[in-house]
C-alpha cells in the first residue's frame, strides 16, 4: 500500500510547521524549509555486556534563503517554538542580506513529479530498548568463550520539504543495523576479531544468531595468525571491505563539483574500470534507504556512473549542475560547498558465491574489512588503510591460515581497472561505510598493494 502523507499526522504537522516558517519569511526571500522528526536509538555492547544504550527524540527544522542582491544562507534549529522559529528566520535573512551578491546562485528547484519511495517499516520505527537488547543477546550467545562488541541500532523519521517555488514533498524512512564482532583469545598476543553485519530498513531482518555465527567463525578461525611480508597479493574482498573502498571515488570522484573543478579522477567516456564494473546511484531501488528527493527538493532518479567499466556520469546538486551546464541529478546533501554525493550507491553483483571466488584464488588474501582508509590524492585515488576483523591466506582455492593485519597503499581506480576484476560475488548487500550505506558484493581482484605489516 502506498504511503499517503496526507493521512500521516506527523507529516502533516511537519508541513504545517514549514508553512509557518514560510509565513515568517513573508516573501522577503526565496526559501526552502525542511522538517524532520523521529526517534533514533543505539544499543552498544562490549566485553559481552551492554555498556552504552541510548534512545532519543530527534527533531530539526532547516531553512535556506536566498535574497536578491545578497547571498544564500542556511540555518537549522531544534527549537520549534515561536521564538525559536522567529530567530531561525530573522537570523537567516540577516545573514543572507549581508553576504556578497551571488549572481551564480542556481535558485530553488521547481515543482516536478517525485518517484514513489517508501523505505519505511513501522515495527522498526517502534522498536523498544528490550527488543534491541534481545537482538544483542542473540549475538552474544553465539560466542561461547568469546568476547563480543558492537551495536544494534534502529531509527525512523518523517521528513517534509516545502519551498516558495511550490515544492511540497514528504518522505518517511527507517533503518536497522546490527554491526558487531566476536573476539577470540589468542595463545600469544591480542585477541583476533571476526565480523558480521546486517543493514536493512526492517528490524525483523536483524538476526543476531546468524550474524553472530558468521562473526564467531571468523574469530575462531583467525587465532594465532601468521605474519606475511608486504607486497602485491591477489585478493578477495568481502562486501564490507568493498564498501570501504567506494567511499573515496563516491566522495571526491563522482562528485560533479570536483569533476568541474578538475580535482576528480573521472574522465567521462573512458574505460577507467574493468568491464565487469557497473556502478550507479538509485534511491528509488526498493533495496535502498534514501528519500524520494534530495536536500534541494529535486526528484531522485537512477544515475549511472560506470557502465561496463566506462565512466558515464557524475552526480550534481543544483549549483554544480549549473556549473557543468546540465540538470541536477537530485544528489544534493544540503551543502553547495560540497556538491553532489551518490548517497544510494550500487555496485552490481555477480553470480559467483563467495566460496567460489575464494576457490579461484591461486595464492592470495581473503579480506573481511578495511580500517581507517584515508586518501592521499583525490586525482589518483591512492588510499592507505589496514585490514581488520579477519584476514586469511588462500592457496590453491583454500583458506590455509589466518594472517596478521597488513597495511595497504593502493589506487582504488587502478585496483578496479581494466583486467583487474576477476570475479563478482552473488552476495550483494547493504553495508555501511563512513559516507553512508552502499549496496555491494564481494570482489575478486587480480592484485592489491600491501606496504606494511605489524613490524612496520
Amino acid at each position, binding site marked *: 500500500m502506498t504511503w499517503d502523507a496526507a493521512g500521516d499526522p506527523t507529516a502533516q504537522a511537519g508541513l504545517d510547521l514549514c508553512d509557518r516558517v514560510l509565513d515568517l519569511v513573508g516573501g522577503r526571500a526565496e526559501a526552502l524549509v525542511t522538517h524532520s522528526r523521529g526517534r533514533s536509538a543505539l544499543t552498544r555492547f*562490549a566485553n559481552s555486556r551492554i555498556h552504552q544504550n*541510548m534512545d*532519543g527524540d530527534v527533531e530539526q527544522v532547516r531553512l535556506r534563503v536566498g535574497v536578491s542582491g545578497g547571498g544564500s544562507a542556511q540555518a537549522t534549529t531544534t*527549537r520549534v517554538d515561536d521564538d525559536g522559529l522567529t530567530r531561525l528566520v530573522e537570523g537567516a535573512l540577516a545573514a543572507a542580506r549581508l553576504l556578497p551578491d551571488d549572481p551564480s546562485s542556481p535558485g530553488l528547484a521547481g515543482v516536478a513529479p517525485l518517484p514513489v519511495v517508501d523505505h519505511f517499516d513501522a515495527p522498526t520505527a517502534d522498536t523498544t530498548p528490550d527488543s534491541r537488547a534481545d537482538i544483542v543477546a542473540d549475538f552474544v550467545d553465539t560466542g561461547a568463550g568469546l568476547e563480543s562488541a558492537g551495536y544494534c541500532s534502529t531509527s525512523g523519521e518523517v521528513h517534509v520539504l516545502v519551498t516558495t517555488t511550490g515544492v511540497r514533498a514528504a518522505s518517511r524512512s527507517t533503518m536497522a543495523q546490527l554491526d558487531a*564482532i566476536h573476539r577470540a583469545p589468542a595463545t600469544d598476543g591480542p585477541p583476533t*576479531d571476526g565480523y558480521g553485519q546486517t543493514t536493512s530498513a526492517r528490524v525483523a531482518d536483524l538476526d543476531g544468531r546468524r550474524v553472530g555465527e558468521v562473526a564467531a567463525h571468523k574469530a575462531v578461525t583467525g587465532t594465532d595468525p601468521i605474519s606475511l611480508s608486504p607486497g602485491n597479493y591477489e585478493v578477495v574482498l568481502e562486501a564490507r571491505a568493498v564498501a570501504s573502498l567506494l567511499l573515496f571515488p563516491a566522495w571526491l570522484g563522482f562528485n560533479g563539483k570536483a569533476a568541474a573543478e578538475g580535482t576528480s579522477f573521472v574522465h567521462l567516456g573512458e574505460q577507467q574500470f574493468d568491464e565487469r564494473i557497473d556502478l550507479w546511484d538509485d534511491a528509488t531501488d526498493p533495496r535502498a534507504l534514501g528519500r524520494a528527493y534530495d536536500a534541494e527538493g529535486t526528484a531522485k532518479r537512477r544515475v549511472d556512473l560506470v557502465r561496463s567499466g566506462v565512466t558515464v556520469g557524475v552526480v550534481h546538486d543544483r549549483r554544480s549542475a549549473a556549473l557543468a551546464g546540465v540538470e541536477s541529478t537530485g544528489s544534493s546533501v544540503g551543502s553547495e560547498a560540497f556538491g553532489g554525493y551518490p548517497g544510494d550507491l550500487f555496485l552490481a553483483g555477480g553470480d559467483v558465491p563467495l566460496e567460489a571466488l575464494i576457490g579461484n584464488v591461486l595464492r592470495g588474501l581473503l579480506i573481511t574489512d578495511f*580500517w581507517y582508509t584515508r586518501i592521499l590524492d583525490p586525482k589518483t585515488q591512492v588510499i592507505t588503510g*589496514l585490514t581488520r576483523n579477519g584476514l586469511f591466506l588462500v592457496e590453491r582455492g583454500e583458506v590455509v591460515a589466518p594472517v596478521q593485519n597488513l597495511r595497504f597503499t593502493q589506487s582504488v581506480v587502478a585496483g578496479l581497472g581494466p583486467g583487474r576484476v576477476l570475479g563478482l560475488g552473488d552476495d550483494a548487500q547493504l553495508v555501511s561505510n563512513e559516507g553512508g550505506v552502499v549496496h555491494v558484493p564481494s570482489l575478486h581482484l587480480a592484485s592489491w598493494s600491501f606496504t606494511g605489516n605489524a613490524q*612496520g
Partner: protein
Amino acid sequence: MFDLATAAVEAALAAGASYADARIMVVRYESMSAKNSVIEGLTQTETAGVGVRALIGSSWGFDSTPELTATAARRAGERAATVARASARVPGPPLELAPTPVVHASWSNDWEVHPLDDIGISERSDLLVNVTAAIAGAGVPLAQASHQIWDTDKWFVSSDGSRIDQHIVECGAVIDATAIGDGETQRRSYPGVRGQFGTRGWELVRELDLLGNAPRIAEEAQALLRAPQCPEATTTLILGSEQMALQIHESVGHAIELDRILGWEAAFAGTSWLDPAQLGSLRYGSDLMNITADATLPGALGSFGFDDEGVPAQAVDIVKNGTWVGVLSGRDSAPLVGMSSGGMVRADGAASLPMVRMTNVGLLPGDSSLAEMIAATEEGIYMDTNRSWSIDDKRLNFQFGCEIAWEVKNGELGQMLRNPTYTGIGPRFWASMDMVAGADEWVFWGTANCGKGQPMQIGHTGHPSVPARFTNVRVGVR
C-alpha cells in the same frame, strides 16, 4: 534550566535509577566557507536539548529530547531508566563510580572579541572572500577558506547534588590553495590542514594573519607540482609542530583512552596496545618524551571547567621522561584500574552520550629548536602540515602523509619534496625522538573534528606541540 535538569534527574530516580545526571545544552554554531572569492556555504545552527543518564545496577541508560519543557525532561528521565533496565538484559559486572566532589559552580572561558556577537557577519565573510581572492590571484585554480564558531551553554545536575553551568566560546579558521597537475593535485593549507581552533574569541582568527600567508601557500602549492617525489628511504625525520600535533593525537591521544584500553570501543574505534598492568613501567618513548593531558590550559581547544560528569578539569601526566604513567578516564572507567576520574568525559551535544575524550594532550617543550635540529642533521627530511592519516585499531602501526617536505643535507634545508609520507610503529618511533624544540615554538594546536563512538560524535581536542626529530624512520612509502 537547572529546574528542567533537576526534573529529569528526579524522574530517573523515581523510575528506579540509583544514580542519574542531566545535561542541558544550547549551542549556537556557524560555519562559513568561500571558494575563489565566492561564499559557497553559510550555515547557522541552534541546537538545544536535555540528555539524561540513568544507572540501574551495573547498567546505564540514556535518553534525550530537544524539547526544553518540564514534561519532556521528566519523560526523558523516565525513559533513561527504561533503557537502563533493557541494558540489564545483557549485564556486566558490578559498576562503581569514582567519587567526585559535589560542586555548585559556574565557569566560562575568556575571549576578547565574541565571534558571533561582537563583530558583524560581513567582517567574517569579507575576510574569507579577500583571502581566497589573494590565493587565487597568486595563480592557483582552487582557493578555499572557512571558519567555524561555537557558543555553548551547558547546565549539569547530578543526583549526587552537583549543579554546574558553563559557557564555552570556540572558533577558528583555515585556508588552502590547491594546484592541479596532469595526474595529481597538490594542496597547501594554513595554519594547518584542519586549521587552528581554540577556546578563544575572534582575536584568534585575526592573529593568524590569513591574508599575509595566502600568497605563500599559493606559491608552495604550485611549486609542489614541480618538486621531485619524496624518496623511499630510512632516514632522520624532522616534523613541524602541526604534524607533531597529529602524531600525538593519533599515536598517543587515542591509545591512552581508558575506554579503548578496557575494550569498550573494540568494535569500532578499536582498542589499544597499552596494558594497564604496565602503567608506571612501560617505556612509551625516549627520555625526551613528556606528554600531559591538561584541560586547564587557557585558550586551548580541549579546555573547560568541568567535564560532562561534573568532574573538575585537571592536568594529568601521561608520559613522563618516556615512561607511561597516565590515562584519559571517567567516573565509570577509572575505578577499574584503581584511579580517580581524570575529568575527561564529554559529549558533543545534549543528544549524545558522554564518553572519554581527549582534553589537551600535548608534548611538553624540550630545549632545542627547529633551526638547531636542521643544523644538527647531516642527512634527513623535514616534513610539515598533515595531508593523510591512517593508524591501526590498536594505535600502533601508522602511516601519515604531509603536504610538504624539504630534504636536509649537511645541516641545511635543500630542495622541496612532494607527496612525503612516513610510517612506523608507535613506541619504536617515539623511542627514536632525540631532539625536541623549546617553549618558544610551543603551539596549542586545536583539532575540531575528532571522531569517536557510535553514533559518531565529533570532539574538540587540543594538542600543544613543538617540532621534534626522529631517527631511522621509513619515509616515501608508496
